[in-house]
């Protein structure tokens, strides 16, 4: 079997095992439940720019799904794999490490796809959210999703490799991610936030992930912070995080492992 086939198969088995796991179920659907409760609670309000809160939060939660998959789910999975010995076992298998990396990429992509699809379906049914109708909209959707994922995955892999246990990883990234989620316009439009919070949030990729996705789904930028689509800035900020992560992660990992 080729390394690629083996890695894809590994990712499918892994994701299937996580989906069927009762212990993982709680962590897995916590985001979905929060999303559902919020849209049932305040979904009928307008979010600005002619967009309803349900549609706004659906897109925001899709952005957060990508962000948290890279910055929370990935480090916890990697830390657990190291803690339990899976990484060591794979290091001792021929082709084990490329198979592991491929497998993780596949399982993470599936995780993002399943959660996003569920939320988009709910948002469509309740909030009238429709998929992009133009090729331009679809192209925006695709590059924002990909670049958004790339902006957090190297960072997440680094956190996972450095922290000793899955619990430590969860503790380290849990609170900052939640704060960033509140500050970055996932649940409430950024226009409602104090100015310092607005500035701080714009440093991080999560806000721009949401902004880019809204550009793909919504017609009018009326509800945005500066009243206009800023896709160039979105690409720059997310791209900078991606490049910084890709440069820093191997360097830091070499320093930490010291071998």
């Amino acid at each position, binding site marked *: *079997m080729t390394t690629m086939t*083996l890695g894809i*198969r*590994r990712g499918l*088995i*892994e994701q299937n*095992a*996580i989906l*069927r*796991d009762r212990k*993982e179920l709680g962590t897995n659907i916590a985001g979905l439940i929060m999303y559902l409760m919020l849209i049932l609670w305040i979904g009928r309000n307008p979010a600005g720019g002619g967009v309803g809160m349900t549609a706004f939060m659906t897109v925001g939660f899709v952005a957060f799904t990508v962000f948290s998959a890279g910055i929370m789910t990935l480090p916890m999975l990697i830390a657990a*794999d190291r803690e*339990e*010995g*899976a990484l*060591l*076992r794979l*290091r*001792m*298998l*021929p*082709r*084990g490490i490329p*198979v592991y990396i491929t497998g993780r990429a596949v399982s993470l992509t599936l995780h993002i796809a399943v959660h996003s699809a569920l939320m988009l379906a709910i948002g469509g049914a309740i909030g009238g959210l429709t998929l992009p109708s133009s090729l331009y909209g679809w192209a925006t959707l695709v590059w924002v999703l990909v670049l958004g994922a790339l902006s957090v995955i190297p960072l997440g892999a680094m956190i996972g490799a450095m922290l000793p246990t899955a619990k430590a990883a969860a503790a380290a990234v849990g609170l900052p991610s939640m704060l960033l989620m509140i500050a970055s316009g996932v649940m409430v439009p950024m226009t409602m936030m104090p100015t310092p919070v607005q500035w701080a949030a714009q440093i991080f990729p999560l806000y721009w992930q949401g902004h880019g996705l809204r550009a793909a789904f919504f017609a009018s930028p009326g509800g945005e912070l500066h009243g206009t689509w800023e896709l160039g800035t979105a690409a720059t900020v997310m791209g900078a995080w991606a490049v910084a992560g890709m440069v820093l992660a191997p360097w830091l990992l070499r320093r930490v492992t010291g*071998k």
Partner: protein
Amino acid sequence: MDTVINVRGLRMSYGERQVLRGIDLDLRRGETVALLGPNGAGKTTTIEILQGLRTRAAGEVRVLGEDPARGGDAWRARLGTVLQDWRDHPRWHVRTLLDHVAAHYPTPWDTGELLKTLGLDGHATARVRDLSGGQRRRLDVALGIVGRPELLFLDEPTTGFDPEARREFHELIESLDTTVLLTTHDLAEAERLADRVAVLLDGRIAVFGTPQEVAAAVQAPSLVRWRDGTEQTDDPSELAWRLHQRYGGPVPELEIRRPSLEESYLNLVERSAA
């Protein structure tokens, strides 16, 4: 002679601390060698270097004819490892995990047959974390040997076993037709499984040979007991001969107990600490 592991002058240090100070070690094809030594003597470091997981400071190392530091996938496919305390892939099913690991190797065992051999065929669809300790250990062995390794590393494989599980494990290892390098703290286990024993003390191999040769090299005293006395001696045959002369015939209730591997080993460790 066909050697599977060939080590000359292996050195390793962590910062200022020298862990291995020039190790020589040879394993012949098909033999089982136990690597003994107190905690911190460098057993795990030695194994990790042989597996290519750690870079040595100096020395010649050949494992299956290759330098482990440069061993590629084809080389790695000829090795197998069973470590202590593995808890990986808890959510996977037994058969799925074994099939997945087997698929990394060019000529693996039939996984169904292997599960049957290890008495795990009734648990093929069980989740790995639902296995008992003994079953989990047998699965680890299955995962370690599924690629038909020419060389198998066992790092303290029976720690935490009950006596029955330990015996089953020993029988299983004895039935394998492969070269085995084993580390253990259980000297009875080493005596039972190993053709030869190497004792690692202070980063050097203090003795290397059959359990009898180790006892001879250490010169741990034998215990000679007869109706009228008891004596500890390094040369029990000589004492027996003198006793025969004294009694002018058979010595009543004569009993000679050679030192066990454990006694030789402890003797050696105590002497090196003194």
